[in-house]
């Protein structure tokens, strides 16, 4: 009987050990993309630079996004476009786009745009056949128009085939776009 009580008491004690509840983890320890910056440089005039930023410093949920720029472009112009992704919840900020480049065989940007714009991928990954990543692209505008460009980043580990429908969505930003 004593053995029984001892065993039971021990079982209770062992299971009673807890993590400290008064010191919760900081929620930002998980990986976040807080910021997406598009930098479009006129290929004919390097001083004509257009920047369009989306910024949600605390990530999904919580506070709303603080910045979501429109893209304003000139008609009949060719832009060299770079995408930079940041995690600004960390200090210093993490450059997530470097990670994407490092794991380029698993990621791809897709651009769904309304008329007046043509987008050509400038980069390719090391896969066979090689597929674009989309961090670096060439955007050619035609006639003046207004619409949207949806920038989509898909995570497609082992399934990258150039299909937008595959994989998981890491980014889906619908930028208002004006071409004049």
């Amino acid at each position, binding site marked *: 009987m004593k053995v029984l009580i001892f065993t039971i008491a021990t079982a209770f004690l062992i*299971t009673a050990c807890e993590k400290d509840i008064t010191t919760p983890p900081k*929620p930002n320890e998980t990986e976040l993309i807080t910021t997406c910056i598009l930098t479009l440089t006129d290929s004919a005039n390097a001083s004509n630079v257009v920047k369009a930023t989306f910024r949600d410093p605390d990530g999904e949920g919580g506070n709303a996004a603080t910045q979501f720029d429109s893209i304003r472009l000139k008609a009949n112009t060719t832009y060299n476009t770079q995408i930079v992704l940041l995690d600004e919840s960390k200090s210093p900020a993490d450059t997530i786009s470097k990670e994407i480049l490092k794991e380029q065989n698993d990621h791809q940007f897709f651009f769904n745009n309304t008329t007046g714009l043509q987008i050509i991928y400038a980069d390719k990954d090391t896969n066979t056949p090689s597929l674009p990543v989309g961090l670096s692209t060439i955007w050619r505008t035609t006639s003046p128009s207004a619409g949207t460009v949806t920038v989509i980043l898909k995570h497609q580990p082992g399934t990258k085939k150039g299909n937008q*429908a595959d994989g998981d969505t890491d980014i*889906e930003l619908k930028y208002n776009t004006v071409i004049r």
Partner: protein
Amino acid sequence: MIRFFQWGLVCKYVAGFLLVLTSICHAESKSDKLDIYLYDEDNHKPIAGAKWYINLGNNGTSQDSGKTEADGLIHLHDITQSKIQVYIVAKHFNTIDTLILIGDKSTIQILMLHGNDAAIEVEVHADQTKDIDAQPGQQLSNLELISTRSLGIAQTLANIPGVTLIATGSTIAKPQIDGLQGNRVIILNNGIRQEGQQWGNEHAPEIDPYIAKHMKVLRGAGAIRYAHDAIGGVIFVEPDTLAFRSRQAELNLGGGSNNGMGAVSLQQSSYIMPGRLAYRVQGTTKRSGTVHSPDYYQKNTGSAEYNGSLALGYVEGRHKLEFFGSYFYTKLGIFSASHIGNVTDLYQAIASDRPAETSNFNYTISRPYQAVNHSLFKLQYDYNLPDSQWHISVTVAHQNNHRQEYDKHLPRNNTKAALNLPELDYSIASSSVDANLDYRVRGWRHSLGISTMYQANTWSGRFFIPNYETYRAGIWANSHYAKNKWDVEAGLRTDYRQLNAYYYQGNDLLQPSNNWQNVALQLGGKYRITPNLHLLANVGTAWRPPAANELYSNGLHHGAATIEIGNAGLNSEYATTYSTGIHLNNYYRFSADVIASINQINSYINLVPTLPATLTIRGAFPTFNYIQQNALLRSISGTLLYHLSESFNLKLNASILRGTDRNTKLWIAQLPADRFSSSVNYVLVHSRGRLQSAGINLSITHVARMWRLTANEDYSPAPDAYTTLNVGANALLKLGKRSIELNLSVDNLTNTRYRDYLDRFRYFTDAMGRNVRLNLRLPLYN
């Protein structure tokens, strides 16, 4: 020891600590009346005041109960069944729980044995589920239990009219009582309040169904003996009583054709010191593979479950000590095509008739999946005062629940992905102490109890709900009076609860604290017009403070592709349930159990969509906020049985529920659609050779379309009505000294394509197709 003196009966089950001598005789003709006389084995005097309960052996929908008068007589008439389950409790005697086969004799005698453990055992058992007559409740029959438990605990409970399933695909389900679920339904697992992460719809109760010998549901508010917050009701999951004087072992096997499910459960109960020290050990293992809808396999829907439990009981004089420990582990694959990262993907998945991802049959469980373990330890001490009128019980319990959810979406960073960590990881630990005092005198039972609990929740991974701790303390009193045709019960309870949460907002650590205190009460009565016709009426109240997720959740619910935002300003819900019911037992060939109830819930906490959608880097997500409404739920549900003949009966089950907001008059979402089932049952009346009993049934279930919805509140319209056809057969075979119970059933016989409104995966896939199930119960020795 009890002995049966007249022929024409066979004893099958025995409550634990009894030894039974069985006498077997194959009767040629069958009587429809039976008089059972109870005598004291020592002096052959009749036993008055023994409580008895009769369950019809095969379909269990009819029950009768009463107390013996001075002559110790239990008089039963209009018996249509070939066997009846008899349960007799009498103070100072061992409890009798046995199956009687009705033969040609109309009178039998049962000699009851004195036992030093008996009085305590009777009290304990009676206190748990049998005595609360005034609040409407229904118990599952043995057949319902055996034939469905391989599917899971919620699926087993769904045999009770008014209990429906909130499902997340074919493998995850939680019970809903009259439209209420989650924190509003209390599950008492062997007397201990189950404490897991029950706030999530995709969090199924962590209980091994094979441990249950009895399952019962009390409906509506008012179960004040057990909880102050059971607005929907209380579910009892009770294991078998310990066997202090006999040794038993049984093997349960379950199999299902649709998903290659196989379950094995072994149980052994025995004693170490006769009458003093007994134990029961039990273990279950279950595997299942990919679920098949009529046209395709639902990729990644396999599951694995491993459970075990140990019970020890020690009796010395008037003292009784019982230990119970159980462990539950499950790994559940989540249907791949349901795990959605963003709204565009969600609408794409909903729009397609066929899931984007299907697979072949396999047992592999890959991401997304859940891994959950739950352990429970309980120590209960009972003491019967010398005059046996007073009874004290103290219970200490501890539970740990660890839930890990692995998203389909691996971390973007390959190094982090390689660690294969869960994206959501919650641990909840709960410790409780409860004490009850019961006093019985001349038909009265007065009870007084206190109940306390401490709970701590911690998380890691992605934030969804904060760290929190809860303190609870309550005191209650209850009186029950039973005499002649009346059963009356009244109770009062007051509780205090504190919840302290800890979370970061930016770099600031917030530590909000909440206190609540309120009162709940119950008043109920039951009137037996005749032994076969009972009326009952009950009014009860319950209150529930907001839970941590309702107050503080804030974030993206992956998989659901919604953003859920808690509301720190929520108040407690307060519910009042009025119910009335009728019970008929073979009354002019009719048997019925029908309950009508009105549940009025003030400050009902509801998660509703709010505009605009939240803009995130992954697109705009539908956003849900917690609001409070004044809800009014009206329900009627029940079973009607018509005995065409001794062998044939027709059965109708119906559950109808309406829920509205009393102020806006709008329908409340997430309530079950109207549900009807009818069946024709054939029961073999006379045993033939080895076949002791048998039955077959054919049933049709019809679930209406859920039309009571508010526009634009859901991603897609409610699915169409559906009808499924099921057949079943059961048999009790005698092999040597053992009786094997066999059960074969085919669910969704016609392989009908359908989707259920309360299944979250209805957006993505058809429900399970045809499933042939075989269940077997084999006593290894007894």
